[in-house]
C-alpha cells in the first residue's frame, strides 16, 4: 500500500513537471520526493525509474495512438530506421533513467543526513 502510494506521488509529480516545467525538473522533483520518503537507494531508483518510464511512455503512447500520425514513423526513419516501438522504449528509458537518478540522488542525500535503517523498509 505504502509503495503504491509512493509510486502515485512520483507519477503525479512527474506529470506536473512534464506539463509545466522543463524536462530536467523531473529529475529534481523525483529527488525531492525521494528525500521525503524513507526508502532504500535501490527502491528510490526503482520507484523513480518506474514512474518516469510510466509517465513518458504513457504520454507518448497516448499521443501516438490518438493521432495515428505518420510522423512517428518518419522520426524513426531519420534515426537510422528505428521502429515506432523502439521510439517508445527509448522514450520510456530516458524518462525512467532521468527520474530514477533524481530519486536515487534525493534518497542518498536523505541517508547522508538521516542514516537509513533497513528496518524502515516494509
Amino acid at each position, binding site marked *: 500500500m505504502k509503495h503504491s502510494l509512493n509510486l502515485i506521488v512520483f507519477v503525479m509529480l512527474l506529470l506536473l513537471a*512534464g*506539463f509545466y516545467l*522543463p*524536462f*530536467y525538473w523531473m*529529475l529534481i522533483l523525483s*529527488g525531492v520526493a525521494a528525500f521525503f520518503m524513507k526508502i532504500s*537507494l535501490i527502491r528510490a*531508483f526503482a520507484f523513480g525509474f518506474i514512474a518516469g518510464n510510466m509517465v*513518458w511512455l504513457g*504520454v*507518448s503512447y497516448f*499521443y*501516438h495512438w*490518438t*493521432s*495515428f*500520425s*505518420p*510522423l*512517428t514513423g*518518419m*522520426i524513426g*526513419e*531519420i*534515426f537510422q530506421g528505428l521502429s515506432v516501438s523502439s521510439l517508445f522504449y*527509448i*522514450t520510456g528509458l*530516458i*524518462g525512467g*533513467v*532521468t527520474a530514477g*537518478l*533524481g530519486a*536515487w*540522488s534525493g534518497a*542518498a*542525500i536523505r*541517508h*547522508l543526513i538521516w*542514516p537509513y535503517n533497513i528496518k524502515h523498509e516494509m
Partner: protein
Amino acid sequence: MKIIKCFIPILLSILWIYFLQKAIIVGDNAIPPLGKFISPFTGFWQNVRATKSIQNTVLNQMHKEGSILFDDRMVPHIFAQSTGDAYFMQGYVHAMHRLWQMDFSTRAAEGRISEIIGSKALNFDRNKRRKGLAESAKQSIEVWKKFPEAYKLVEAYCDGVNYYIQHLDYKDLPIEYKLMNFEPELWTPYRSSLFHKNMAEVLCGRDQDIEMTNAKTFFGADFDLLFPEYDPLSDPVIPKGTKWDFNVDSLINQVENSNQDLGFIPIQRTIQDPGLGSNNWAVGPSKSVNGNPILCNDPHLNLSLPSIWYEQQIVTPDRNVYGVTFPGIPGVIIGFNKDIAWGITNGGWDVMDWYQIKWKDESMTSYFYNNEWKNTEYRIERIKVKGQQDVLDTVPLTVWGPVVYNQISHAKYGLAMHWIIQDPSAYCEMDVFDLLNQGKNVGDYRNAIQKFPYPAQNFAFISRTGDIALTVQGKMPIKVNQQGRFVMDGTKKENAWHGFVPLSSTPHTINPIRGFVSSANQKSTDRGFPVYYNDGDFRDYRGTMINRYLSEKKLWNVDDMKALQYNAYSLRAETALPSLLKYLDTTSMNSVNQQVYHELKSWNYMYDSNAVAPVYFDLWMDIFHRLVWDEISQDTLKKYTVMPSDQTTIRLMKENINLSYYDIKSSPTKESLQDVVRISYDSLLNQIQSKLLFQKKWADYKHASIDHMARIPAFGIPFVSTSGSKDIINAHARTFGPSWRMIVELTKDGPHAYGIYPGGQDGRPGSPYYRSMVSDWSQGKYNSLNYVNTIHDLTPLITYEFKK
C-alpha cells in the same frame, strides 16, 4: 563512504542531464539535445499530437477583427474589414502552416545556413552573400518606405506572422526546428524582400556567358549556325509581326559592341539542365465553348515539400480574390477574382552579365576601367558558423558589381557580375500583386504589373468582359547587338547596359486576332522588337505545341484545358524520330532489336508513365547528340563549353546532312550522318541490355521524387509515378515540374476555377494535409476551387476568430 555514496548519484545525475541537454555530433550530422527532443511534453511527440489537434480558436488581438474559415482541404478563406487586417491574418496562417519553410528559405537567401547546420554550408552562404541578395533586400526596403501605404500593408503581414511566433513555445515549434535545434526569428519587411530576391535568383539568376564565349571561340565561323538566337520554327510569346511604337537608338547612341575579342576562357561551365519552364495561356470568348474567357497556368519549379505554394482566399470590402500565395509575402500571386484572372511564367531574359576585369596584380586591389586604374572597394561579410568561430569574407566590389568567386580554382574566378537585382527598383514590388488582386479590367492589369521589376515574367490575363492579354513584364536592359551574350571586357565603360526599356513598353499583346495568348518561356518576340535582348537556355518545343493545339482546335472548354495541361506529346520526338529511324537497317535485327525498333516505330510520341518508347528515345537522343558533338565532348573541352542544343541538332540533321561535325573524331574513318545514327542505335541496344532497361516503363526510368526542402528523406516522397518530361507541355522531370496547375473560366455567374499542386496546405510533416494532393496531382486530377462570396457560403472545418 556515506559522502561518496551520496556523491555518486548526484554526479551521475549532472552528467546525465548534461548529456541530454547537449546536441551530439555524429559525422556531418547533429542529433538534437535528446532531453527536450524526446520528452513527450515538449519534443517530437508534441508534433505527433499536433497533427490531429484541429479546433476552433478565438484569438484576442488588439487591433484586428475578422475570421479565417478553413475548408475541408485546409484552405483558409480570410474575411476581414480592411486589407491591413486581411494581410495580418494571411501572415498568421502562413506562419501557422509554413513557418519553418519561410524562415529557412529566407535565411538561405541571406547566407545564414551555417548558423544552423555548421561549416558544411559555408560555401553556400558565401555564394549567396557575394551575389548580394541581402544587400539588394536592404536597398529595396529603403525604396518601399517611400510608399507608406504599401509599406504599411507589408508591416501588417509581418505583424500577423509575429503574432503567431510570439505565442509559440518550444513544444509548438515545427519539427524541423527541433531536429535542427534552432528557433524562429521575428518576421520583418526585410525578410519578405529576401523572399523576393530568392525567387529572383531562381528565375533570373542564370546565364551562359562563359559557355557562349567559349563556344564562339571554338566553333568560329560556324557559331551562328550552331547557336542561333532565333530558331526558324519557333513561335514567340508575342505573335510574329507585332508592330512596336518606339525605338531606342537615341538612348544608346549607336555604341559599338566590344565584347568579341576575349578569346577562349578556360573556366568551367556552370549552366543547368535546359528544357524546363512554365506554361500559361488564355482563350477569348471567340475560342471558348461557353463564350467565356478561360485562363490556364502551370508554373514549373523545383518540386519540394512543403510546397512553395499555399492556396488561399482573401475577402475584404475592396476585393474577393482566390489563388496561390507565397508564404513569406502578402497577397495572391497567381489567381483570380470575379472580374479578372492572371497567371505567370518566367520571361527568361538574360539579366546577369559577367565582365572580365583587368586586375593590376593578384591582390585585386585595383583594376583598369575607362582608361584609368581604379581602387577596388570591399564589403566584409561576417558569417556565423554553428559550433565554430565566425568566418569573415571580403567581397571585392567593382563598378560592375561584386567579384563573386575569388578562389583561383573556382569557375568565374576574378570576373565581376552585374545582375539586375543590383539596380534598385523604383516601386514597392509588393504593391504589384495587391493592385492585381483588386483589379477589374485590362487597364487595372496593365497598371498593376508595370511596377514589376524582376524576375521578368509573362503575365497572361483574362477579364470577365472578354479581354485577353499577355505582357512580358520586367526591367529590360537596353543592350546593343549580342551584348551580354558573352563575357564582356570590363575595361570599357561602353559595355555597361544603356538604361532600361520603359516599363510600359515591354512586349505585350491585347486581344490578338488569333483569339488566344500563350507563353512557355520561349523568345518573347520576333526579330522586329526594337531592343536587342538575349535569353537563357529555354527551348521552344512547349510554346510551339501549345500554339499549335490552340490554333487547331476551334472551341475549348475546361475539360479540354485540363487535358492540355497534362498533355505529354513530344514535339522533339516528332521532329527527330522519323529522321533517325529511316537510317536504320531493319533487315538483320535480332529479337530485342526488333522489339525496340517496333516500340519506337509505333510510338505516338506520348511520354506516358507506362510507355517504354520514351526510355529508348531519350537514351538514343542523348547518345546521338554526344556522338555528333564529340568534338567538344572530349574531357578537356566539355568542362568549358557547351554543345549546340538538341533542337538545333535535330534541325541540322534534317537540313544539313553533310555537316562535317558528323565525323567521329576518335575513329580513323570518316563517318556520315547515317553512320552516326547507326552507331548510336547500336550503343542504345547495348545500354538497354547492360542497364536492364528493356521494357522499362517511363515513370520507373524517370524515377521522379518530391524532396523535403532540407533534404530530410523521411519528410519527402521518394517516388512519384507520373507522365511528362522536359520539353513537353506537362513538363515534369525528376524533381522539377508543374508546381501549381490552375484553370479559370470567368462566367457571368462568377469564376469557375480548378487547381492543384503537388503537396498539401499544412507544411508540418505528419499532418494529414502535408502531402494530401500529391496523388491526384500525379494523375492529372484537379480540385474544384471553393470561391465563395460571403462567409455564409462556406461550411468550415475549423474557424479562427480574431477579436479586438
